[in-house]
């Protein structure tokens, strides 16, 4: 019985095993037999035994004991044994195995074998699993084969060289001359290998790339030959002559033409020809066209050609074949930034692809649609995107929600539209949005002051329908807490009036508090909202009091703390309750991030613990021990600034313009370090500013080697009161600045009272201390702003 039948017999037996256990038994027996055979001397059946082992290996069973047998078989003079031996080497030996080094010598010998089929085996194996050392050893051999052999070997040597260059890039120089000469070959296999090799060399070495630019005319010539000659049966695929070679040449042309006008010009005509003449009814033609389009868009092509390329992609978009549509969208994605208008023309088709049942196509269509959103088409695009969001696969929901938010933020035609859109997203995909959506939305709502009534009504309605979407519930609770009075008033111009009673509202909040679906953060929001309502409703304050006191013994520590504090507000600090729970001021978008990372988000920031002095309209809490490097804050850094708003140093208007101005202000504040001797005497007060009735005095007090307390006192000698008085300060970069809460923001006229603000400075590098101060206030209904720079601080102590 011939041994190969035994192999097939074994396969049959293994396949007929009915259970995994039976199969394992058969395989164990066979492996034992194989192992025994391996130990014996040459018995003529070695290759078949190894083949059996390879089959077993493919099924997933361990076969490492066959590694040495591979080495032995490769060294055998018999072709059949070499064939299986090399196959085994490619399957069992990879470069991480030690045994792989042992075959280097065999490969070397076989590379010079008299039979080209043996040479071919060696080349194939080296190209498949050759390690860096093996490649270094054998590179000269490969180079020799590249130059002086028949085309059968040359084409394999070329691809082997590609592998060598990938493993050991420095060897690229060795192959460059040979690669160049290979381009004049007629054999397609060799040409293909040569083009792949040149591509690899050019991608790795810019100097080689320069050298090979001279080959562009030759490549153009070859391509022309392929495109224009008649039917060639040997290389024809669906009417295209050797599409594999065409695609590789186009790819090489792309690399050579990139960023180079001369090369791009040389290939312009050819690309136009290929683009117009290639028949794309079958995949082969489409593949060539696809590569052509990629090349045209990447090199410095003339505009007519670019338009042609985009039109081809547009045609692809309408193709019945889903693969072609997918490819087209991938390519459009690459060019949507540079050729935006051209891609916009196909927006309709792209949006239709959002409804395609295939997930890959949907993903591409989503990315492309988001890239195509602009101020002009925002309304219609958003309609489509929201429709998509409600039915899209779960893995795309987060990306879609995020993209919608970004688009809405950039192009919202009106605030109401913006709020509506965000609400829509929260209702459909609330679970997939990111955490900062809640504070962002809250900030947006506060800025849209004329829409408060509308917003709170809408949110209330959403809340009573469904309390499972946490982000939506959080925002709704916050709004109800803030604007509960508007909700209770009933009427609202933009929405049909619905009578909401105080009990209804409290019921809704209590449902959220008690529901098992609510996360701890959400319950925090709800509790705070309930508390805030105590100042906004009239009848049910007792109910609120009882709710709050219940939660004073809640297991959740966060809720318990809040409840206890609110209880205190009811009892000991009732006189402050109204002031503490007043409406929040408009939160500024680019001032420090409002979510503090822990649960509770925005709600936590609103209520001061009763220990803060002077209850005021400004209710934001300043976390202790916060160092604010103001220069970094306003210098337009990418990082979100440290959490927690800082009293007195938030700009009233959009901080981006303020930041920009201040950036100019801070331009010249860097000073060289000067060593100073510390003195500990207290310093006198210096008047630093006196204008329009405002006087600003500065007093320094040295705390330590590097620490300094600066007290700024402002007084108003004019006849009119000044309100919203704020001070901002900036110091050189190495100095740390900490502004404490100002005593207030109201400066009465004629100097009847003053405002003080303390600034703590830490100057570890002992640089020359300078400070720029900007003040802003409102007087007689108009806003004023002024800046001053303090270059020298009073007294030696301040240096």
């Amino acid at each position: 019985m011939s041994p190969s039948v035994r192999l097939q017999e074994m396969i049959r037996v293994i396949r007929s095993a009915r259970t995994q256990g039976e199969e394992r038994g058969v395989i164990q027996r066979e492996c034992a037999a194989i192992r025994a055979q391996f130990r014996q001397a040459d018995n003529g059946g070695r290759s078949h035994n190894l083949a059996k082992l390879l089959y077993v290996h493919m099924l997933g069973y361990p076969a490492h004991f066959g590694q040495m047998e591979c080495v032995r078989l490769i060294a055998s003079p018999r072709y059949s044994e070499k064939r299986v031996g090399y196959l085994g080497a490619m399957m069992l030996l990879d470069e991480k195995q030690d045994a792989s080094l042992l075959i280097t010598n065999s490969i070397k010998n076989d590379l010079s074998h008299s039979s080209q089929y043996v040479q071919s085996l060696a080349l194939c194996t080296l190209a498949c699993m050759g390690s860096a050392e093996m490649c270094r050893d054998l590179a000269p051999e490969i180079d020799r084969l590249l130059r002086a052999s028949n085309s059968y070997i040359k084409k394999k040597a070329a691809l082997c060289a590609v592998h060598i260059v990938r493993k050991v890039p420095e060897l690229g120089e060795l192959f460059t001359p040979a690669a160049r000469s290979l381009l004049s070959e007629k054999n397609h296999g060799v040409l293909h290998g040569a083009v792949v090799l040149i591509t690899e060399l050019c991608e790795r070495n810019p100097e080689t790339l320069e050298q090979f630019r001279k080959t562009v005319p030759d490549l153009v010539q070859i391509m022309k030959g392929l495109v224009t000659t008649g039917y060639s049966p040997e290389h024809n695929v669906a009417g295209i002559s050797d599409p594999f070679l065409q695609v590789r040449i186009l790819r090489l042309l792309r690399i050579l033409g990139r960023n180079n006008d001369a090369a791009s010009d040389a290939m312009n005509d050819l690309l136009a020809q290929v683009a117009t003449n290639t028949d794309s009814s079958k995949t082969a033609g489409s593949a060539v066209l696809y590569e052509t389009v990629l090349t045209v868009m990447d090199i410095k092509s003339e505009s007519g050609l670019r338009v042609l390329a985009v039109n081809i992609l547009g045609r692809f978009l309408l193709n019945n074949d889903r693969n072609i549509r997918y490819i087209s969208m991938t390519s459009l994605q690459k060019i949507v930034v540079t050729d935006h208008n051209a891609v916009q023309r196909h927006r309709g088709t792209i949006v239709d692809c959002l409804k395609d049942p295939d997930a890959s196509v949907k993903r591409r269509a989503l990315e492309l649609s988001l890239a195509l959103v602009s101020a002009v088409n925002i309304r219609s695009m958003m309609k489509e995107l929201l429709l998509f969001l409600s039915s899209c696969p779960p893995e795309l929901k987060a990306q879609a929600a995020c993209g919608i938010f970004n688009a809405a933020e950039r192009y919202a035609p009106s605030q109401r539209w913006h709020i509506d859109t965000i609400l829509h997203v929260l209702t459909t995909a609330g679970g997939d949005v990111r955490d900062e959506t809640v504070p962002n939305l809250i900030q947006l709502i506060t800025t849209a002051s004329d829409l408060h009534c509308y917003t709170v009504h809408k949110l209330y309605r959403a809340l009573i329908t469904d309390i499972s979407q946490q982000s939506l519930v959080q925002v709704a609770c916050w709004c109800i807490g803030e604007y509960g009075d508007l909700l209770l008033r009933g009427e609202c111009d933009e929405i049909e009036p619905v009578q909401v009673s105080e009990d209804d509202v409290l019921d809704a909040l209590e449902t959220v508090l008690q529901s098992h679906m609510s996360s701890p953060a959400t319950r925090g929001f709800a509790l705070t909202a309930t508390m805030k309502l105590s100042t906004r409703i009239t009848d049910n304050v007792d109910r609120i009091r009882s709710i709050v006191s219940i939660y004073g013994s809640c297991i959740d520590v966060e809720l318990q703390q809040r409840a206890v504090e609110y209880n205190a507000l009811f009892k000991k600090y009732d006189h402050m309750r109204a002031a503490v729970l007043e409406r929040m001021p408009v939160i500024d978008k680019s001032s420090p991030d409002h979510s503090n990372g822990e649960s509770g988000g925005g709600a936590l920031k609103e209520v001061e613990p009763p220990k803060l002095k002077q209850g005021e309209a400004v209710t934001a809490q300043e976390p202790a021990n916060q160092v604010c490097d103001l220069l970094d804050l306003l210098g337009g850094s990418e990082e979100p600034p440290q959490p927690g708003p800082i009293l007195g140093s938030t700009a009233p208007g959009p901080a981006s313009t303020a930041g920009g101005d201040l950036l100019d202000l801070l331009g010249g504040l860097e000073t060289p370090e000067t060593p100073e001797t510390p003195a500990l005497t207290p310093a006198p007060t210096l008047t630093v500013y006196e204008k329009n009735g405002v006087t600003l005095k500065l007093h320094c007090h040295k705390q330590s080697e590097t620490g300094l307390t600066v007290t700024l006192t402002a007084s108003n000698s004019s006849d009119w009161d000044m309100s919203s008085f704020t001070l901002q300060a900036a110091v050189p970069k190495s100095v740390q600045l900490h502004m404490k809460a100002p005593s207030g923001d109201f400066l009465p006229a004629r100097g009847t009272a003053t405002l003080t603000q303390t600034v703590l400075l830490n100057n570890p590098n002992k640089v020359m201390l300078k400070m720029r101060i900007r003040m802003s206030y409102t007087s007689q209904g108009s806003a004023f702003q002024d800046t001053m720079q303090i270059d020298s601080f009073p007294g030696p102590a301040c240096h």
Partner: protein
Amino acid sequence: MQFMLLFSRQGKLRLQKWYVPLSDKEKKKITRELVQTVLARKPKMCSFLEWRDLKIVYKRYASLYFCCAIEDQDNELITLEIIHRYVELLDKYFGSVCELDIIFNFEKAYFILDEFLLGGEAQETSKKNVLKAIEQADLLQESEDEYLSVKIFK
């Protein structure tokens, strides 16, 4: 190309060719995950999918899935053509190939693949030349075996 896998509708591996060095464990993991992903796709879906940082091109021929992993710069459509060319080669060699041919003659399937692709790239674009080379190699093997068996019987 980084690797090519052939597997049946039941997820059984019929051929695996790796052009990147990976440990056995990693290969098994990748195979398992990829097979699962591809088998989960519905029939009319796109032949391309993104998986990890690779592009996967797959096509189903009767009961076998042919699956290739290519890199970012590679052309997906031409990879489909490569897969098709390989199927044609198998078909010509075995005469109307079916899965059983590939199971029982797996080493021949590998030899054909190695005549068509080298190091992950196509080495010969003419179908005729590939088949001719395999034929010659088979002849070489047979004549050698014959010669040796004659020698033994002497």
